[in-house]
């Protein structure tokens, strides 16, 4: 694959298809994306689709139509686009990048054979290849959402790439079966894998991350935990404490966990940070422990969190505003493109109102701003743009907005 850079500003075009057939879908999306791009040369293609369209033929066709242009992307539970939110579809983003920018893409496979941390280190190593002395600006990672302890992938990455620049990650999702999710890299569709892009040069970008859940009830202390498994809260079995709040009993909780855990995650208090760091419950261990999507350190103070559609919509507005505010915008330089990586739990929470969030995004970013995103099984990003302290957190239930200047 060869990197091509043209002109002084970024040129973006998005193609979308809702066809069920992968070949028809990619042809339609490519046609639209090609037609919308103001330049002939394409530097990078980002592909998002629902799992039913994750087919090698998709990438083969893109490669045939674009030539050796780097391709990255992944599957999501649904697509977020300017045209609406779709539970079935394929979107292709074609980017023609300015000369001042630089990037490198890489893929790491068979994560289960090494651990996510080691895979992160591998990916970091590959991303640095050929990067020479160019300043590193931003890293974006798409990781199979069903990889065990996927959150530690970023830590591995940071081991190699350092913490001087932010890393943002989205965890690929399927159609809520939790059976298979995939990442896209050039002509390969892979599961148990992660792909990433490391940006350098002068890329004007910014991000915002929010969830909108509020703490409820008294604070609790994590008295025993290891990685993402919490055994005891206030010296009592964790599942009992959680089930107590919900009034369903541990057995009842097991039955309805998938539905309930989306609405009532636990929040970890982080000093100086406005919002709590959310962790939603993944499963209940036989020993009465709670297994979370993401790690919870022992001795952390946690609280039960509650969210409403309104509070979550407000949070989305804040994340979008923060992302936009961080860009160096001028009347000529508008938002080039906004990537939205949003937790699938918000999709479930909003239901039919998911489009309201999209409406806010359009209103905040400008109605003609290209918007593309997916509903994920997890998001990873630093907590805030201002006073970035080099630490990237794994999040649940958030909306992460990555805006790139035009």
């Amino acid at each position, binding site marked *: 694959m060869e990197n091509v850079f043209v002109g002084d500003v970024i040129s973006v075009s998005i193609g979308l298809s*809702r066809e*069920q057939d992968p070949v028809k879908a990619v042809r339609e999306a490519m046609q639209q994306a090609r037609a919308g791009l103001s330049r002939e040369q394409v530097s990078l293609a980002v592909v998002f689709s629902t799992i039913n369209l994750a087919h090698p033929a998709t990438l083969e066709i893109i490669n045939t139509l674009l030539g050796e242009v780097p391709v990255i992307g992944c599957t999501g539970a649904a697509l977020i686009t300017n045209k609406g939110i779709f*539970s*079935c579809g394929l979107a292709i983003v074609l980017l023609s990048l300015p000369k001042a920018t630089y990037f490198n893409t890489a893929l790491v496979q068979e994560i289960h054979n090494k651990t996510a941390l080691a895979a992160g280190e591998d990916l970091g190593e590959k991303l640095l290849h050929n990067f020479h002395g160019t300043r590193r600006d931003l890293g974006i990672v798409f990781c199979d959402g069903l990889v065990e302890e996927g959150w530690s992938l970023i830590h591995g990455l940071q081991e190699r790439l350092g913490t001087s620049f932010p890393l943002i990650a989205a965890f690929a999702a399927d*159609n*809520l*079966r939790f059976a298979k999710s995939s990442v896209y890299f050039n002509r390969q569709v892979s599961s148990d894998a992660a792909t990433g892009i490391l940006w350098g040069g002068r890329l004007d970008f910014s991000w915002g991350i929010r969830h909108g859940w509020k703490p*409820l*009830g*008294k604070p609790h202390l994590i008295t025993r935990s290891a990685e993402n498994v919490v055994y005891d809260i206030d010296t009592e079995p964790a599942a009992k404490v959680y089930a*107590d*709040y*919900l*009034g*369903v009993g541990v057995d009842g909780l097991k039955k309805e966990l*998938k*539905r*309930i855990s989306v*609405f*009532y995650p636990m929040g970890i208090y982080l000093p100086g940070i406005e919002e709590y760091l959310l962790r939603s419950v993944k499963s209940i261990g036989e020993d009465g422990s709670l297994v979370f999507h993401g790690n919870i350190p022992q001795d952390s103070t946690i609280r*039960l969190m*509650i969210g409403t559609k309104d509070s979550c919509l407000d949070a989305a507005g804040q994340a979008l505003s923060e992302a936009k505010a961080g860009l160096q915008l001028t009347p000529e330089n508008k938002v080039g493109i906004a990537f939205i990586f949003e937790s699938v739990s918000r999709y479930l929470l909003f*239901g*039919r109102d998911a489009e309201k969030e999209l409406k806010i995004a359009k209103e905040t970013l400008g109605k003609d701003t290209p918007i593309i995103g997916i509903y994920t099984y997890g998001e990873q990003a630093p907590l805030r743009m201002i006073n970035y302290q080099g630490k990237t957190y794994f999040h649940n239930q958030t909306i992460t907005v990555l805006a790139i200047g035009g």
Partner: protein
Amino acid sequence: MPVHESIFNTISIVSVITILALLILVIMKNTRLKELESDVDNLKKSLDEMDEQAKLIVRTDIELNKAQEELDKKIAGLYSLQGLSRTISTTLVENQIFKMVEASGLQELGFEKACSFLWNEKDKKFTTYLSIGYTREETDLINATVNLNKAPYLDLINSNKTISSVSLQDAFLKEKITSIFKILSFIASPILPKEGSKGFLFVGTENMDTVIGEGDEELIVILTNQISQALENARLFEQTWKAQQELEKKVEERTQELKSALEAVKIVSKRKSDFISAVSHELRTPLTSIKGYASILLAGKLGQLPEEVRLRLDKVNRHSDELTSLVNDLLDISRIESGKVTMRREPLDIGAVAADMLDFFSVQTKEKQIQLSSSVAKGEFSVSADVSQIKRVFINLVSNAIKFTPAEGKITVSATKSGGFIQVDISDTGCGIPGDAKEKIFEEFYRVENAVNDTVKGTGLGLSLVKHIIEAHGGKIWVTSKAGAGSTFSFTLPQKE
């Protein structure tokens, strides 16, 4: 008191005071501690109470969310059902109806797999019409398995019963269905159009979280009713379309038959004209000989004839004239019919022709005491026509009028302008023509049965010839008449350009 004692006393007093103060302080601190402990207890109690309230809030919120979810599911279901119904109703082709059932619509209803079968009465088996979420091989296997044990599916159709993984009591059958269709939850509902093949729609999901409720069954029943209705419409349309096709085919066949018949008639008509023309020519030669010889004899060039012979020869001569006239008319008719005669069109003044007629028939009208008049002034109406032929028309019509008008009767010639045509009317106060004869009188050799025709001879060709001449000019001829109340013969001719 020694100084030492005084110092000692002072120290003792201070010590006592200090001890007392310390005691007071300790007491006060203890009291404060107790107060603080009480405050902490109160705070703990408040926090616990707040936590209990939080639990209540969460539990209420769970209930609300559950209700909201169900409501959302129903609304989403209704939306997708409406979408499905709308697409289904866009086609009137039976095979297309099932293709219109979109996977996305069913997914919104919570089902990613679907199959539909229609019972083929002739082959006694189910045919697959819809398969969503299955590969071709899986579909074939499902079809074969369903046909291997048709009874439960036929029962579904015959009993008009919708079953689901929740409502089906027969655990064995439930197990079997979930295994055949590779799903965890399902609904099967019969498709029962009033006519034609009946069948059933099967929808299912592998999703463990999907809980099928009564509302879901109702939605699928509505969908199958829509499919049944669409099938009925398609079948009715098919029948109507087929009937129309048959009708069109029949019309086409009849048109062809009529065309052939018309061609045959034309051939026959041409043969008839040719025959008449040939026969007439053949008759005219001997007729001229007969008339010639009769004239020679009558002129006495071969000697004086006895009166008896002369009278007979007169008859031969007169009959020869009549026969010649008949043959000439026949020849003219056949010539016009075959297009051999072309009308030499030139400006013709109707008023002048009418005036000529008054002169021409003056003797006859005087003899018969009939008043023949014309209201057409010379130069008033001018047509484009063949002068000699139109004069024949006038002569034929006026002579007919004189023939059928009794003494003291009236014959009038008038003309009016009608569109691009001039209409000429020749009216008499004669015996009139009975209704059923009005059309026939223009046919060849047709003669109205009446007293006049019984006594006065005629060929029955005059009106036919007139009709041919008028039509050859692009005009029309017709008669309005009442038996006993006179007749009006009207014809039109194109106005002079």
